[in-house]
C-alpha cells in the first residue's frame, strides 16, 4: 500500500493525468506561517488547478483558515513561495481578482442585502460610468445565492444561513478569477447545501472561476474535482477523490482520510521511538 508523506509527490500527480501543474491558479512552495512561536503551516507544497473546484479538508484547527488568509493576502508572517494567479500572494493587483468569504459572514447588519452589495460593488467598480455594470452585477449576485425575495431586508434580520449567503454574494460581485470560500456551507440545511454546491460547480464551469472551498464535512469532499487533505498544519494528500479512494483502497474519501491520518500518526510515533533509542 502506498502512503503519501507530505504533498508534492509530483510523479503521482502526473500519473493521474491531471493538468494541475501546467495551469495552476495557486502554487505554494515551502509555505510556512508562524503564530507566536507555533508553526501553523509547516512548509506546505501544493498547487490548485485553474477552473476547478478544489476542496480543502481537515479537522477544525488544522490551519485551513490560515492557509486561505495567506492566499488572499491578509495573513501576516508568511514565508516561502506563494504564487496566486501568477503573482505573489497579497499583491495589490490581486485584490480585485480574488473573492474571499470568511467563515463568519462579514456584511453590514444595519444595511439591506441590496445596500450591502451596492457598496461592495462600488468599491470594486467605482464611478458613475460603471453604474449599469454594478446594477447587473448586484442583481446577478442576488440571483446566484437565491436571495431575490430578501433583497430589501436588513442583513441583521436574516437567518444565519441567509446572512452567510449575502456574504457569499459579495464575493461573487465583479466575477473574480479565484474564489476562496471558508466553510461556506457550515450550518446550512441539506437542500441549501446541495444548491450551493451546484452553484459552485456552475461558477467553475460557466465562468472559468477557480474555487478553493474549505470544509470539515467529509461528504462534501466527494463533490470536489480535487482535494487537499490537511492535518495539523501539513498536507496529507493532494489528489482527486477517485484516486484518493483507489490508492487507499477505501469506499469513501472519509475512510481514505482516516487511513492517512492513522498512518501519519504511526509514522510520528515510530519516529519518536527511534529518537528515544538513538539517545545515549
Amino acid at each position: 500500500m502506498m502512503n503519501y508523506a507530505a504533498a508534492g509527490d509530483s510523479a503521482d500527480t502526473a500519473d493521474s493525468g491531471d493538468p494541475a501543474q501546467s495551469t495552476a491558479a495557486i502554487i505554494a512552495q515551502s509555505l510556512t506561517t508562524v503564530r507566536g512561536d507555533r508553526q501553523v503551516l509547516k512548509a506546505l507544497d501544493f498547487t490548485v488547478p485553474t477552473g476547478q473546484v478544489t476542496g480543502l479538508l481537515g479537522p477544525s484547527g488544522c490551519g485551513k483558515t490560515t492557509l486561505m488568509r495567506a492566499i488572499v493576502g491578509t495573513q501576516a508572517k508568511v514565508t516561502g513561495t506563494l504564487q496566486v494567479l501568477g503573482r505573489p500572494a497579497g499583491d495589490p493587483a490581486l485584490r480585485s481578482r480574488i473573492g474571499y468569504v470568511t467563515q463568519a459572514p462579514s456584511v453590514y447588519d444595519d444595511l439591506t442585502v441590496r445596500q450591502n452589495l451596492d457598496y461592495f460593488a462600488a468599491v470594486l467598480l467605482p464611478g458613475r460610468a460603471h453604474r449599469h455594470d454594478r446594477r447587473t452585477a448586484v442583481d446577478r449576485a442576488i440571483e446566484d445565492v437565491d436571495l431575490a425575495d430578501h433583497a430589501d431586508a436588513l442583513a441583521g434580520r436574516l437567518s444565519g444561513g441567509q446572512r452567510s449567503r449575502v456574504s457569499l454574494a459579495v464575493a461573487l460581485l465583479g466575477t473574480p478569477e479565484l474564489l476562496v470560500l471558508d466553510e461556506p456551507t457550515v450550518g446550512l440545511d441539506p437542500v441549501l447545501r446541495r444548491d450551493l454546491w451546484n452553484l459552485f460547480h456552475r461558477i467553475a464551469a460557466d465562468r472559468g472561476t477557480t474555487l478553493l472551498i474549505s470544509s470539515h464535512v467529509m461528504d462534501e469532499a466527494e463533490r470536489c474535482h480535487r482535494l487537499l487533505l490537511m492535518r495539523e498544519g501539513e498536507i496529507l494528500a493532494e489528489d482527486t477523490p477517485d484516486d484518493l479512494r483507489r490508492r487507499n483502497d477505501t469506499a469513501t474519501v472519509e475512510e481514505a482520510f482516516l487511513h492517512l491520518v492513522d498512518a501519519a500518526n504511526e509514522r510520528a510515533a515510530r519516529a519518536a521511538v527511534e529518537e528515544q533509542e538513538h539517545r545515549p
Partner: protein
Amino acid sequence: MNANRTLATAARVLRQLRHDPRSIALMLLVPCLMLFLLRYVFDGSPGTFDNIGASLLGIFPLITMFLVTSIATLRERTSGTLERLLAMPLGKADLIAGYALAFGLVAVLQSVLATGLAVWLLGLDVIGSPWLLLLVALLDALLGTALGLFVSAFAASEFQAVQFMPAVIFPQILLCGLFTPRDRMAPALEAISNVLPMSYAVDGMNEVLRHPDMTTAFVRDALVVAGCAVLVLGLGAATLRRRTA
C-alpha cells in the same frame, strides 16, 4: 485614493446611520438639550452662559463624534467587514476619508442646530461671526472622528471603546479652560493643557466670542485643531493593517 470609493464609503456609513433613527435623534438633540439646560441653570448670570456655552459648542461635536466613530469603526473591525474591505481594492485613506466625510456631515448638522439655538434662541452673546463658531465646531467634530478612529484600534470590545471616552476626553475637558482659565492652573497642568487639542478648540471659540474679526489667535487655534485632526487621522490609518496575525 479614489474619490468615488471615498464617496461610496461615506454614503454607506450614512445609509447605515439612516437605519438607526434613534442614534440620529440622540446625536442631534442631546447637545441642544444641554445648551438649553445651561441657559436656565445660569439664568441669573448671562455672562457665565456666554463663556461656557461658547466653549461647549466646541466640545459637544468632539465628544459625540468620538463616541460614534469609535463604536462604528470597532464594529467594522469585529464584524470582519474591515478585513474584507482591505482584501478588496479599497485604499485605507478611502475608508478613513469616507468615515470622516460622513460623520463630518452629521457634525455640521449638529453644529448648525446647536449654534443656531444658542445664538438666536438662547441669546448667546457672540461678538464675532457665528460662521466662525461653526467652523471651529466642524474642526472639533473632525478631531473627534479622528480620535475615535484611533482608539478603536486599542479596544477589543464596544464595552472597552466606551471606557476610552472618560480616558481620552475627560482630562481634556478638565484642562481645556472650561472650568477655570488655563493660565490660572498649576503650571504643570497648564503645560499639559498646552499640548491638548481641545484647549485650542475652546480658545478658538472664546476668540469668536470676544472679537468682532478673525484674530491671529483664532487662526492659530483653528490650524492647531485641524492639524491635530489630520495627524490623528494619519495615526488611525496606520492602525489599519491589511495583513494581520
